[in-house]
């Protein structure tokens, strides 16, 4: 639920409840005030009758009252005189209809006769007034609610626009693509602060990321020189004189380690370079031609490992760096050779822009994790960067890489054309 909706709901419910309660209180209070006023008027009338009786020693004529009706009723002399107000009906002779009325019932002693006097006044005007007030209140309430809803719908949406703008930019923020977060003009302090915070965060993240990447780049480069020294010293050592078989094996192990370290360094450098988009030799590369070339290049290795290679190629031209295309194919083929079964096979299909490389696997299917840097299964003898490089190269050119494991075969598919 959106913040505005939630806020609206609370707002409107509260408004309705409060307005209802106010309405009731309003009605009751006004009603009470009017009744009080009527009662006071009736008491004044009673007073006038009493003065009249004490002055003239007789009761005033009922007909002499203009706005009220007065009735007399003689009571038994010993009866208890009581005084009370009550709601009755008032018969309007002019309109010839019954109206709600208010009566004061009291007793007057005239000489030795006790009279019960009922003074009745019409309540119609007061009731009308209360009703009008109530209607106006209700009308105002409805108007208020309607305007609240309208404000929420149109104004709030516009008010939140800067927020959604920032949110969208944050969603689209991509560290690898080094995207920026723009400042948008808003007069709302909160959104301004949010915007500035987002921009600052993005730039500091970018800065950190840049430093991290240049660190990898520099570290790898710096390592190349000592590696070159070790390598050249080993080469010199080999020439120094006759070596024993044991020394030969030791030297071989050192060479292998140096070789792996060099490859690791080169792979890391390559990954940083792809990430930094520093490889720019974009050109038309015929993948089928390149696959052919690579198959020739790998021929001895296929033979050595007794691998049967089935190739079915259709021409497929792709706009990419030839250097990266070669690395991509090298890595795919190297994996297909390394993780093959003895006397296995490699099937390479290139159809409709989809390159498929299938080879029987020694173990189980690969997982998503295998595409992470430095992840490798127990049986792997590589560095764990091969698949990461494949993924990175494909990511650079928006090729999709998919992996499946049908019938115990590893199957990599690269869709060059989406």
């Amino acid at each position: 639920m959106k913040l505005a909706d939630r806020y609206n709901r609370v707002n409107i419910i509260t408004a309705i409840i409060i307005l209802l309660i106010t309405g009731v209180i309003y009605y009751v209070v006004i009603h009470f005030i009017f009744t009080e006023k009527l009662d006071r008027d009736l008491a004044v009338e009673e007073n006038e009758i009493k003065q009249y009786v004490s002055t003239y020693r007789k009761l005033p004529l009922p007909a002499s009252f203009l706005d009220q009706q007065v009735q007399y009723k003689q009571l038994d002399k010993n009866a208890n005189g009581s005084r009370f107000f009550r709601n009755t009906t008032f018969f309007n002779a002019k309109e010839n209809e019954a109206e709600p009325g208010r009566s004061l019932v009291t007793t007057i002693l005239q000489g030795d006769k006790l009279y019960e006097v009922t003074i009745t006044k019409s309540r119609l005007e007061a009731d009308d007034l209360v009703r009008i007030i109530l209607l106006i209140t209700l009308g105002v309430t409805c108007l208020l609610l309607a305007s609240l809803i309208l404000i929420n719908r149109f104004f709030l949406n516009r008010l939140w626009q800067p927020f959604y703008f920032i949110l969208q930019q944050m969603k689209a923020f991509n560290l690898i693509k080094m995207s920026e977060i723009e400042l948008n003009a808003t007069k709302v302090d909160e959104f301004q602060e949010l915007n500035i915070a987002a921009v600052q965060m993005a730039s500091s993240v970018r800065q950190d990321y840049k430093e991290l990447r240049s660190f990898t780049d520099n570290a790898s480069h710096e390592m190349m020189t000592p590696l070159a020294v070790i390598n050249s010293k080993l080469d010199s050592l080999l020439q120094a004189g006759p070596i024993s078989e044991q020394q030969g094996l030791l030297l071989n192990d050192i060479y292998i380690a140096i070789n792996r370290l060099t490859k690791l360094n080169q792979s890391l450098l390559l990954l940083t370079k792809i990430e930094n988009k520093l490889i720019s030799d974009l050109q038309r590369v015929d993948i089928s031609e390149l696959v052919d070339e690579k198959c020739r290049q790998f021929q001895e290795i296929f033979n050595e490992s007794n691998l049967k290679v089935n190739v079915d190629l259709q021409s497929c031209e792709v706009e990419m760096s030839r250097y990266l295309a070669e690395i991509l194919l090298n890595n795919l083929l190297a994996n297909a050779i390394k993780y093959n079964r003895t006397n296995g096979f490699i099937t390479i299909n290139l159809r409709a822009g989809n390159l498929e490389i299938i080879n029987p696997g020694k173990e189980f299917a690969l997982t998503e994790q295998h595409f992470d840097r430095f992840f490798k299964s127990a049986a792997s003898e590589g560095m764990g960067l091969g698949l990461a490089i494949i993924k990175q190269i494909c990511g650079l050119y928006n090729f999709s890489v998919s992996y499946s494991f049908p019938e115990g075969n590893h199957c990599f598919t690269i869709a060059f054309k989406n």
Partner: protein
Amino acid sequence: MKILIVEDELPLLESILSYFSEVGNICETASTYSSAYEKINLYDYDCILLDLGLPDGEGLNVLKELKKLKKNDGVLIISARHSLDDKLAGLDLGADDYLVKPFHLSELKARVSAIVRRKKFDGSNVITFNEITVDLANMETSVNGNLLTLTKKEYDLLIYFLSNKGKVVTKSAIAEHLWGDDIDISDDFDFIYTHIKNLRKKFIEAGANDYLQSVYGIGYKFATV
């Protein structure tokens, strides 16, 4: 041949120097930009091995200076930067080749020999090693005057050995030379054995001496016994 080695990493400089020091080679060294600048102004070299990252100047400026002097020295760039742009910039400025650190000394020697051969003989020349003759222009190999049919890989292998005669060449250096350094299949390079075996067989059958010696699982040496 006369070679100038421009390299600021002294241990590496020494290794290169000792590998290239043999009868018929004159090697000079420079470990700074200024000394390299001085030497190219004073002398002519068959080949200059040029490191790009020098402490007191950019190695590429040595190339520019050579061009200004209208000298025809061969130049092989050795750099720690495996960058396509650096490579293209170097080759554009007239370098003959580009080798990325770390490298095998045998690879360096093979490349320098190739440059020197190209420069000296305009691409038409012959390498002779006792009874073996290789005509580089026609890519023909003969033993005692009899033509020998070699595959492309065997031919490349032979040239590599001839450039590094008397030296122990490691299997990984041979594999990288023949298949490129992007090939990363396995740590043992047993697949090169077939080519070595075939090359040796063809030479023996053609009546040549067996110059190829195996060095305890680590590599091979092409030398007179």
